[in-house]
């Protein structure tokens, strides 16, 4: 739990040493992460009263105490005995240099110590005074009454002997190698072009309710945008301000010429931002270098030198600066070396309303190419790039561009195919370009009106409603191309489960609604949202409730000591008794451990004090309970859904288990409203469809057929996964976790308790623009309205 331990000794020096084939046995060990603890630090640092008292902050990493604290001030006395450790038996050296994760060192004025300890405690974090700033010019560490380090800062800051090198730079040859002619299908199936959807869908894309371009866009959720775009993270209010971020790197070009590789990495990252709707002149860069061990070999030193000169040339020509970067010089194993690697990350602030996704949106649009030429040295015409990028930005801001994509090294054919896949809109293309060749510095644009002349756009075709991509008369069905594109990495990163659940149990729509309304009006109703270790959706949930008119409060459940637990249980029970709504938010309480989700929350709810308050809320006080994702898991595991009471589960109780695909899924699903019996569903009609983001590992609803029928008869099935036409489905593309009877959400018999997997709170203006459907499910408004 974030303590210093032996598992991190040598983290910094280990990654800096040369490695051979004994690496697996004797190298520095690797630490495991503890995300719930880091989440607590994030929460603590959102407290602006506290952050305004921090003079300097440094995070712990590979260098451990010696570096994290040692870097803060020139003169320090560190008390190693005060450093919290994972287990006893660590000696002074280990305490000083062990890598430790999930820790921060902050420098504050002495009179703030008690304040910081108290505030950290509120967030379930430990805060200890470990060092004092002096003016001795020395770094001193004391342990068990002895001074074990006493070094002059001057000496430490020399960074050792400055080494010197002589460098030889090889001739750059950036020309494309002659490759065998391949068909478009074969090209789409090649390793570096193939779809990575099965990889991407493991990663939560929706938390924060700020993702503007969903990672896989269009009605088919398949076309990857050129850049990631997210709105600024606000605790309250709405904004159109956002950031765009992209990357660029081609290991093959970098191997042929590190210089051109770096130039193109930067250019590509910049072009992707432009293609997504960002503005070139607002871009700032950060670079990642990764090279083989250089030793004393002048020609090996030539690799990073050429690469950095390429990066310099691109920055100088584009008038864009790299303001951050990281280098790793450890890319060798015996005689093997990594390719000279310089990855460019481009970041631009901008507006969410400008963000464009690449999938074609209309049949009958014009498709044009906008290209920037290269000179004799195969370097981009940077002046043309700057002019064209600005013209594209203006045209896009005026709404002249429907879709846009930077073709990049996969080329024009692959680019067109990916633009077609998203909405199954075809294209008819005539072009002299080699469609499988690399096409960096080439934008593909869908538009209806003429583009500005500065773009020198070249019309190459039109979009068509038939799902076919026709290039110079040769037709390919999108189905065939997509199968090739998605097939290659399916064995590594599957998009579909091996053994999907297929049997459908029909659930009729529940039309005999007899919903009640709160007996007394309370405006605004109070919502209590507990945040457990590992909860991650409390901010989004509180914001959704506040925007719906409620007074929402987050309560951090603390458990560092027995006393904390006692206090937290009492606070939670009291807060529930003073609230009208209990909301259990999403996340991974206790990391979905031990071996199953929501066990931590369920254990808290079973505590007699909390259980009484919960039952009093729904039985006697007309209150409501909502659980989303992890919250739903807690409700079902305690019995609150579907039974409406806390009970021990038996072998036949409904539950939520691992998704059929046996990994985390992050995607949008269409759900239909089956019953409006619950107050939470009051603002909709039976049959309404919504697009809601899913993000979970254990979301497969399990129940016997008899139980499903019983729930259906009582109107307790709130929502089901369905296809775009609204038909409930067992097809994993529409029912991504394989839920029995395609059930997404259920209620208690009285309807006052709703549990659902889909994150209805992760919605907002400009969110997931490239996903179709109604993304505003009025659950929160309905819950608040119950008390009006």
């Amino acid at each position, binding site marked *: 739990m974030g303590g210093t331990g032996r598992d991190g000794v040598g983290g910094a020096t280990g990654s800096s040493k040369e490695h051979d084939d004994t690496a697996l046995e004797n*190298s520095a060990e690797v630490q495991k992460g503890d995300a719930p603890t*880091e989440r607590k630090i994030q929460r603590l640092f959102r407290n602006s009263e506290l952050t305004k008292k921090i003079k300097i902050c440094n995070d712990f990493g590979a260098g451990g105490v010696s570096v994290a604290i040692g870097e803060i001030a020139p003169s320090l006395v560190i008390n190693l005995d005060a450093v919290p450790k994972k287990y006893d038996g660590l000696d002074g050296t280990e305490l000083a240099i062990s890598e430790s994760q999930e820790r*921060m060192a902050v420098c504050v004025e002495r009179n703030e110590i008690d304040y910081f300890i108290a505030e950290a405690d509120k967030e379930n974090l430990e805060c200890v005074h*470990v060092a004092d700033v002096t003016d001795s010019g020395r770094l001193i560490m004391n342990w068990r009454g002895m001074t074990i380090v006493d070094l002059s800062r001057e000496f430490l800051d020399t960074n*050792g002997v400055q080494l010197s090198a002589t460098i030889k730079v090889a001739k750059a040859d950036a020309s494309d190698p002659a490759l065998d002619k391949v068909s478009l299908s074969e090209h789409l199936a090649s390793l570096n072009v193939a779809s990575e959807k099965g990889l991407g869908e493991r990663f939560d894309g929706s938390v924060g309710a700020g993702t503007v371009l969903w990672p896989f866009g269009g009605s088919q959720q398949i076309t990857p945008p050129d850049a990631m775009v997210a709105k600024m993270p606000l605790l309250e209010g709405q904004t159109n301000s956002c950031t765009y971020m992209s990357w660029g790197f081609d290991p093959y070009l970098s191997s042929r010429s590190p*210089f051109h590789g770096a130039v193109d990495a930067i250019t590509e990252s910049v072009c992707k931002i432009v293609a997504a709707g960002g503005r070139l002149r607002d871009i700032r860069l950060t670079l990642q270098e990764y090279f083989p061990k250089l030793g004393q070999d*002048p020609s090996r030193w030539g690799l990073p030198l050429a690469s950095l000169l390429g990066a310099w040339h691109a920055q100088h020509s584009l008038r864009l600066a790299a303001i951050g970067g990281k280098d790793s010089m450890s890319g060798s194993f015996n005689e093997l070396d990594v390719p000279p690697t310089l990855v460019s990350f481009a970041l631009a602030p901008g507006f969410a309303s400008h963000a464009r996704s690449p999938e074609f949106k209309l049949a009958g649009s014009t498709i044009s190419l906008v290209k920037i030429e290269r000179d004799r040295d195969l370097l981009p015409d940077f002046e043309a790039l700057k002019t064209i990028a600005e013209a594209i930005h203006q045209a896009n801001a005026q709404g002249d561009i429907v879709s846009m994509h930077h073709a990049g090294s996969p080329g024009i054919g692959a680019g067109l195919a990916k633009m077609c896949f998203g909405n199954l809109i075809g294209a008819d293309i005539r072009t002299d370009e080699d469609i499988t060749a690399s096409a960096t510095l080439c934008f593909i644009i869908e538009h209806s009106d003429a583009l500005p002349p500065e773009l020198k756009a070249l019309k190459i075709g039109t979009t068509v409603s038939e799902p076919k991509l026709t290039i110079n008369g040769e037709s390919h069905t999108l189905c065939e191309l997509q199968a090739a594109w998605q097939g290659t990495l399916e064995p590594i990163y599957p998009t579909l489960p091996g053994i999907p659940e297929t049997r459908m149990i029909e659930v009729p729509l529940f039309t005999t609604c007899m919903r009640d309304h709160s007996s007394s009006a309370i405006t605004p109703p109070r919502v209590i949202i507990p945040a457990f270790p590992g909860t991650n959706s409390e901010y989004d949930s509180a914001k959704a409730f506040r925007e719906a008119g409620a007074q929402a409060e987050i309560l951090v459940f603390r458990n560092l000591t027995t006393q904390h637990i006692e206090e937290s249980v009492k606070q939670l029970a009291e807060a529930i008794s003073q609230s009208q709504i209990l909301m259990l938010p999403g996340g991974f309480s*206790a990391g979905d451990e*031990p071996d199953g989700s929501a066990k931590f929350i369920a254990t808290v709810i079973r505590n007699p004090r909390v259980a009484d308050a919960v039952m009093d809320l729904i039985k006697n006080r007309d209150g409501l309970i909502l659980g989303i994702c992890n919250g739903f898991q807690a409700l079902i595991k305690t019995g609150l859904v579907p039974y409406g009471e806390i009970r021990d589960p038996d072998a036949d109780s409904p539950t939520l288990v691992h998704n059929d695909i046996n990994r985390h899924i992050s995607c949008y699903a269409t759900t239909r409203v089956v019953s409006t019996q619950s107050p939470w569903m009051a603002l909709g009609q039976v049959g309404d469809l919504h697009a809601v983001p899913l993000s979970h590992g254990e979301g497969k609803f399990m129940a016997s057929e008899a139980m499903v029928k019983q729930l259906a008869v009582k109107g307790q099935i709130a929502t089901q996964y369905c296809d775009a036409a609204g038909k409930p489905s067992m097809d994993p593309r529409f029912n991504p976790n394989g839920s029995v009877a395609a059930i997404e959400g259920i209620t208690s018999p009285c309807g006052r308790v709703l549990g659902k997997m889909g994150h209805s709170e992760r919605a907002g203006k400009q969110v997931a623009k490239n996903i179709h459907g109604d993304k505003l499910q009025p659950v929160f408004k309905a819950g608040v309205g119950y008390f009006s």
Partner: protein
Amino acid sequence: MNRIFVEKKAGFNAEARHLLHDLHESLGLPQLERLRILQRYDVGGLSDKEFAEASRLILSEPQVDTVSQTLELASNESAFAVEYLPGQFDQRADSAAQCMQILTGMDRPEVYSARVIVLEGELSAEQLQSIKNYVINAVDSHEVAVEEMSQRAAAKPPDDVPTLEGFNSKSPAEIRKELGLAMSAQDVAFCQDYFGKKEGREPTLTEIKVLDTYWSDHCRHTTFLTKIDEVEFEDPDGPVAKAWKSYLETKRQLGRDDKPVTLMDIALIGMRELLASGELDNLEVSEEVNAASIVVPVSIDDGPEQEWLVMFKNETHNHPTEIEPFGGAATCLGGCIRDPLSGRSYVYQAMRVTGAADPLTPFADTLPGKLPQKKICQIAAHGYSSYGNQIGLATGQVAEVYHPGYVAKRLEIGAVVAAAPRSQVYRASPSPGDVILLIGGHRS
């Protein structure tokens, strides 16, 4: 100590099915007919009644698990147990202990978790060993006896830190080898000179290890700060040589003639040029180095523009991810988040760019001393995503590039974007009398 074995019922045992499939595919082994995975918990500090309740409500779920107190093996079954190495953070055991503490309201119990793999089929000793080698990554786990209770011996009080007698007079190369140092022999000699002449004493072991950590390439970019004495271009009129000349010219114009030419200087000259010209007008300049930081106007609810800081950062964890893909990739993101977080900004967007050799390479072609590419790719994706998913960070773009060279070592990059109102970030120099506080997880 109490013990329980928990096994997923048929239909819920996807992990066992996947492992069996994986072993068939990677190792052949048609003799291996069936495979079971049981979760073993050893718990100390609970009464029998409390343990029974914890087993029923926390360690197992009756819908999906079967439980037993002992492990019965058929004659054609063999079993081995795998546990994390002492000191490795075990989220399963830790979470179980946290849940039990809430259940009892007493002190946190001692919990050990292990996975027991039961193999059915006529397997030779070599085959059994090959399965163990495949399943156990010695970097973080080890085999433990199936029958014995897990228990950590109470730690001995550690010895005092030794002073390195004779350090100042030994051969630097010998010292480097003896202490397993990453620093060069020249650095060792430099230390000998410092301790001998300036301090007039021998160093402690801690001092040398601290210096080794401080001066490591990882922490201090030793390579990037190496002075470049001489550069020879094979093609003196080519584009690389031209860029070199333009770099030197710009360095001169910026008045940096007296500064040595280093890779770091070339990496930073683009920023310096645009700062000097005024074109880089939104950089937040501070003494503190947390992450790249720019000042951005943000308008909320159509109100007046506020000044915000947008911070972004990229970081690699190549070596750790290569040898222990789950923890390596998870802490890649964890470390990356902490940089802008230490700058007091809220991280809201993540990207992951990785490089691997062909993950479709057959298992048999795995290089000695290496994990298979497929395993590295899949487990690293699991590690990175599990950290991001747990902390609640939207990952907007994930890409993996494939090149045979990455068989030497994987590329694992995390990149994040963070923001905060500028008014929330105060920066000041430390003064004598100030204190350093350490904030983080608790002592356990």
